């Protein structure tokens, strides 16, 4: 490491990617905790966020913040449709069927995006210009600051929502025991729907804030999805600090690996980390082991 500014650069990139992975991981955790489903299509919400924003901007002459709000609304709508059409009608299905349905939904959304928007890569304009800042010789784009800021805001909002709001508490109750929750008058169906809404919204937000830095296209969802999954696995399937740490850890390792070992194997590092975690501690690094009920 002869070049310290380079190291700072890698760390910055790693952290900002990691923040994104954490947000995507939140999406996984929220749906999983409400329904027991690991939504394979989570990465597609991320893709939709970026793509919707770009195309709203190109069709409507509206300011970026409004386009972002609209894009999140559209992505959330897709989440709602997915839940209503493919998840709610299911009764007593085998877990394997759920796996297959969410895989199907994920490639369906990706395919539809490809048909509608084509295979090109698009860039979203940065939120506040491209004038870099310099820290210890490393360049920070203003967009990095946006990413950190928005991620922290979402983490706080998420925490407040689940700890203090009635809805958030109701969702947690469902996650803990859906039957008991229904006995005390919580509408479990609404909570499941809500989990898709929240998770689509967070996912698409992640996709929007990263799009100015990394470009986006119809197929970014798989990679981002799996990396978010990796983050939430490290965090033990929680939408809390564990997943944030997981995301940051993954982002850092990936970025350092790409910088110091080999850039062309960047994605491979993430997957090797994923496999190692799954093999060694599938219950997460920060969580106690649970016994499957029989």
């Amino acid at each position, binding site marked *: 490491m002869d070049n310290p500014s380079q190291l700072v650069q890698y760390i910055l990139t790693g952290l900002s990617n990691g923040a994104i992975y954490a947000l995507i991981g939140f999406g996984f955790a929220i749906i999983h905790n409400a329904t027991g489903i690991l939504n394979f299509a989570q990465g597609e919400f991320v893709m939709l966020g970026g793509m919707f924003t770009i195309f709203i901007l190109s069709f409507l002459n509206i300011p970026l913040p409004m386009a972002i709000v609209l894009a999140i609304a559209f992505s959330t709508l897709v989440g709602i449709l997915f839940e209503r059409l493919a998840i709610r009608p299911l009764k007593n299905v085998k877990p394997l069927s759920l796996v297959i349905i969410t895989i199907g939904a994920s490639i369906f959304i990706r395919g539809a995006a490809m048909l509608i928007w084509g295979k090109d890569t698009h860039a979203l304009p940065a939120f506040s210009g491209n004038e870099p800042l310099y820290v210890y010789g490393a360049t920070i784009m203003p967009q990095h600051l946006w990413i950190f800021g928005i991620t922290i805001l979402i983490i706080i909002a998420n925490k407040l929502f689940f700890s203090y709001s009635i809805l958030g508490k109701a969702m947690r109750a469902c996650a803990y025991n859906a039957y008991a929750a229904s006995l005390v008058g919580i509408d479990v169906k609404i909570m499941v729907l809500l989990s898709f809404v929240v998770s689509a919204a967070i996912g698409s937000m992640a996709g929007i804030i990263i799009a100015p830095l990394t470009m986006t296209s119809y197929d970014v969802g798989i990679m981002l999805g799996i990396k978010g999954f990796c983050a939430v696995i490290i965090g033990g399937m929680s939408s809390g600090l564990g997943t944030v740490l997981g995301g940051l850890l993954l982002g850092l390792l990936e970025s350092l690996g790409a910088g110091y070992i080999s850039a062309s194997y960047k994605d491979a590092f993430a997957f090797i980390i994923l496999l190692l975690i799954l093999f060694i501690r599938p219950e997460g690094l920060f969580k*106690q082991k*649970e*016994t499957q009920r*029989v």
Partner: protein
Amino acid sequence: MLKVESITQIFGGLTALENVSFSVAPHSITGVIGPNGAGKTTLFNIVTGLYTQTEGKVYLGDKNISFFEPEVLARLGLVRTFQNVELFGQMSVLENVMVGLHTKSKSGIFSCAFKLPGQIKEEKRIKEKAYQWLEFTGLADSADVTACNLPFGKGRLLEISRAMAVEPQIILMDEPAAGLNSRETAGLAGLIRKIQELGVTIVLVEHDMELVMDVCESIIVLNLGKKLAHGTPREIQENKAVIAAYLGED
């Protein structure tokens, strides 16, 4: 036959079993009773190797089986049935029992795929044997029915047939009478005795007191994870602590 020594099981913060010890005599029928959540199923799960206990040991005969996997225990002759019936739903009744004969056969993947002569012979033997077990429990008529279409009571019987096909030394039954009507329960009592006559040791978790008092020679009472009493049906019926536990006092 079966000896359980100071078993403790803690899930997160919840102590499901606390320092439970007892032993089961060979060829006996032992009942395990207790209110809901007492830890009966958890006890079975530990003995059959599905859960790893926090502390304590389990012996089968002289063998320390504390951390054995279920599939190894099956080979040693320890099997069980499940409270929430766990049938192989997509398979026929006969095939369910044939799976019970897995340990009694040995064709590998290669001889199965190529249908080597030994495999064909073995397959025939398994099929006949499985059929005999269905006759033993009175399910032979339903041999070709797909298991998930079986009425509930017959499902319970199928679980027993399947477990018996392993030719166990000891069988643990988790609430075999739950969901059965009174006629089926009476039949079950007969079947349990028939199994005992084959020289099999039986441990029975059951809420149906009539059945338990009728067939069991000794009874263990669990409450809130602790062993409350162990004795003959008569002793248990007169035990003050047991009565208090069942009436919900402290």
